[in-house]
């Protein structure tokens, strides 16, 4: 039996409505309990902020395109290294850290759960091998469905129930957690070097529209009772003004909402929040998107906030990535995956002198500040697309402090600054809201009942930051906040201290979280029969080699769901 007491800290636990109360958190055998014995190890959190461990809902940390990014960019790692210690493996960092370094760097910031959001199912084994080597955090992955041939075939034929059975088979086969869509239909077009525009242009040779794909998968998601809504990277990322596509995407499933949790999650909205007709007159579409989100509870977003730095863009949106190469002239990686999806990688440097980059910077913050419900706005940088995850403390400082924002605004491209609304926004996030946007809301959105909070039975994942919320003024002292968030005083995982004063003191492998969803047996069997017939027509792999066994995961936790009555 192992016991730990995080004592006397200022606790922020929004899921349990605790807003800066001085209290103890007791953990026994990895779970939060009522109290512990006198022999418990004490972590003295006096005068410090205590939150549940961070839960990152969207970060490209593992898999085929991430690794191609590493291989493409030795110069990204050369100067940022992690030396081997008695508890740490060696590694490298900067925008595409090696897997061990990824785990350590998240833990140093007090994060304890991370999701890899774009996994090509055919290459899911690769993702899991990398996740197996990503210590310190619990993790999972979102397999890609939005350009999957079988999905498109099923949806075109209107066979929703069999499609749902296929999705459930795929989640089990890939050990995935949620349904991810990237530029639905558009990446299949990119398989031919082509593009689709908006939601209603048919996918070449498939005669189905992005709208139909999104709606079909949304219905299936609800039917399967999956813990997280469909996670969507919208179409039109490459278009100069694309905020309307974001709104249309949210709106296209509005009629499918019947109360409760949101049914669609739009990711890195900063990238699809631009107004304007071409790159010279691009502006912020954040007010319009915020207005829509404020009025419609069925949708939630994450930010994808820009950091002005040299970073690497990588998404499954191959076509967009090629256009980014054309704009920047930087090196370009592309990885199309048969019958399923694509991928692209382009290094990119966001600069304060660049008009468009400044608009992008403003969009992310405007979304965060103008959307009223913090439970439906998640802080991310779409690592590493808009910036490395190690810069989260910088983003949080911007959210909490108008001064911090002002310091950046003074250095922005002047025309861009004039076009933005951010300087007129006075809102400053509180610690409570920060806890929501970085752990409580993300855990809730993911349906992780034991994470993102410190109530009884929760996982003993706790972060303690050396900052006293009663004595400092985050608006003024944002630098102190940033410093404290960069190096947690303590990061505790399953009741074990992994980080102390920003240094890794212990390492654990972490668990891979995945969803096993059950559907009516007869539909499942029918789907399997059809699948067996078609599988080897579509894939260059035998069907028996495709599913991943649970023993492939170093450690895992399975979430089980049962499908609803009728789709």
């Amino acid at each position: 039996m192992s016991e730990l007491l995080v004592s006397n800290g200022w606790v922020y636990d929004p899921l349990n409505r605790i807003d800066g109360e001085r209290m103890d958190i007791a953990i026994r055998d990895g779970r939060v309990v009522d109290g512990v014995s006198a022999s418990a190890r004490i972590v003295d959190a006096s005068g410090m902020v205590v939150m549940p461990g961070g839960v990152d809902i969207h970060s490209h940390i593992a898999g085929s395109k991430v690794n191609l990014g590493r291989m493409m960019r030795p110069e990204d790692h050369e100067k940022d290294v992690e030396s081997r210690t008695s508890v740490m493996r060696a590694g490298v960092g900067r925008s595409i850290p090696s897997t061990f370094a990824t785990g350590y760097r998240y833990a140093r910031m007090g994060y304890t759960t991370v999701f890899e959001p774009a996994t090509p199912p055919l290459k899911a084994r690769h993702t899991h091998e990398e996740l197996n080597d990503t210590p310190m955090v619990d993790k999972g992955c979102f397999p890609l469905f939005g350009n999957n041939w079988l999905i498109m075939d099923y949806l075109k034929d209107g066979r929703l129930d069999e499609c749902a059975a296929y999705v459930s088979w795929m989640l089990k086969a890939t050990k995935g957690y949620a349904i991810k869509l990237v530029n639905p239909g558009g990446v299949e077009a990119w398989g031919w070097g082509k593009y689709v525009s908006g939601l209603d242009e048919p996918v070449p040779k498939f005669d189905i529209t992005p709208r139909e794909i999104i709606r079909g998968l949304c219905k299936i998601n609800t039917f399967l009772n999956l813990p997280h809504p469909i996670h969507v990277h919208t179409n039109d990322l490459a278009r100069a003004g694309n905020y309307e596509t974001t709104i249309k995407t949210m709106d296209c499933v509005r009629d499918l909402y019947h109360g409760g949790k949101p049914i669609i999650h739009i990711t890195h909205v900063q990238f699809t929040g631009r107004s304007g007709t071409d790159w010279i007159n691009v502006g912020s579409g954040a007010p319009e998107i915020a207005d829509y989100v404020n009025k419609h509870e069925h949708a939630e977003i994450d930010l994808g906030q820009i950091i002005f730095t040299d970073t690497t863009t990588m998404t499954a949106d191959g076509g967009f990535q090629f256009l980014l190469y054309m704009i920047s002239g930087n090196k370009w990686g592309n990885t199309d995956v048969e019958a399923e999806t694509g991928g692209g990688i382009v290094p990119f440097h966001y600069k304060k002198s660049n008009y468009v980059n400044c608009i992008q910077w403003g969009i992310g913050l405007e979304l965060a500040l103008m959307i009223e419900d913090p439970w439906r706005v998640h802080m991310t940088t779409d690592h590493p697309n808009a910036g490395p995850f190690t810069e989260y403390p910088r983003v949080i400082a911007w959210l909490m402090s108008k001064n911090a924002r002002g310091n950046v605004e003074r250095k922005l491209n002047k025309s861009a600054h004039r076009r933005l609304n951010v300087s007129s926004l006075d809102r400053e996030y509180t610690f409570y809201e920060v806890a929501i946007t970085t752990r409580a809301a993300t855990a809730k959105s993911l349906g992780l009942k034991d994470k993102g909070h410190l109530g009884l039975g929760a996982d003993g994942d706790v972060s303690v930051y050396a900052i006293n919320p009663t004595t400092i003024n985050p608006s003024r002292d944002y630098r102190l906040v940033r410093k404290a968030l960069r190096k947690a005083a303590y990061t505790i995982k399953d009741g074990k201290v992994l980080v102390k004063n920003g240094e890794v003191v212990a390492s654990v492998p972490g668990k891979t979280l995945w969803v096993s969803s059950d559907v009516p047996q007869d539909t499942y069997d029918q789907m399997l029969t059809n699948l067996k017939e078609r599988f080897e027509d579509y894939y260059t792999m035998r069907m028996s080699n495709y599913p991943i066994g649970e023993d492939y995961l170093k450690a895992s936790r399975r979430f089980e769901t049962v499908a609803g009555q009728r789709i």
Partner: protein
Amino acid sequence: MIRRGDKLEPTSFEEAVSKAASILSNAKYPLLFGWSLTSTEATCVGVELCELVGGVIDNNTGFCHGPGLIGCHDIGVSTCTLGEVRHRADIIVYWGANPVHAHPRHITRYGVMSKGRFREGRKQRKMIVVDVRKTDTAKMADLFIETDPNRDYELLSALRMAVKGEELEQEVIAGVSSEKIEELADMLVACEFGIIFYGVGLTMSHGKSRNLDAALSLVRDLNRLTKFLIMPMRGHFNVCGANEVTSWTTGYPYAVDISRGYPYYNPGETSAVDILSRRECDAALVISSDPIAHLPLSVAKNLSEIPLITIDPHVTATTMVSDVVFPAALMGVEARGSLYRMDGVVLECKKLLDPPHDVKTDVEVVRAILNRVRDLKRV
């Protein structure tokens, strides 16, 4: 087996492990080489061992398809999984590769003879071969371009010019007429989906990584006009896996120096052949590879003169000059493991038979050495 005097003598597994661990932990710059014909899992443990002993981990990439990776550092790479070729490709180019002999099922499974969702078969595809002689693969081609040896870079430059619509001032480039080059460029630009599969004819001829720089740039240029990709015809069955594992654990695909406690990469400086040719390492572990047979004589000689540990299913020239030899189970027959196909798709190999008595898997051997080194270093 352990060398005593000038003979290799049988010994217990534990004794061999002890001796191997002792050699590696006493070395100032040990080299851990091979990894291309073993499981991904073994390479994972190998990287950990390399960190612990403060050495260099490298695989066969350095003298095979390394140039493609080096080219990728500068240009990137436009590639795909093999099914994409089967479904979509109407132009398939083999450049410096001879799949009829080196990858016998390639053409029927993924190439012009295959059937895909959008391509019925041979009639809907064209095969182009670029090589220095008319190979058996070239005999099957719809267009064969015979080039002067070691002039691929010039030919690729000229092709890039033609694709861009620029005039070629020289009449003959790399032994190919400018008309032929323009004809080839027109074919490439007019296709719906094309791919270049390249082999060591491109990676190991004069220019090496710069040949790939040019080829990757050509493919990138073609994407402004049509859909085009490129893929290396890898040789060793899990060299891709070795690259992938080494990349995710250290950040770099091969030739990784962890002697100073953190990964450092610089082929030419940290690559096995170069380290050996300069006599820089003072001990080596070789796994599922036969460098004594395959590397230049002077390099092989240097390798044979330092304490050498070998892990291999076969008796090889390398095992014969080693100081410690571990017979290993055959991956994919006597041991399960994961491996990466040439297009990055992971396949799990099954175990069909038990290995002979006392023969362990690569993972077991490397892990045993790792654990013993830990004891010796009291970590």
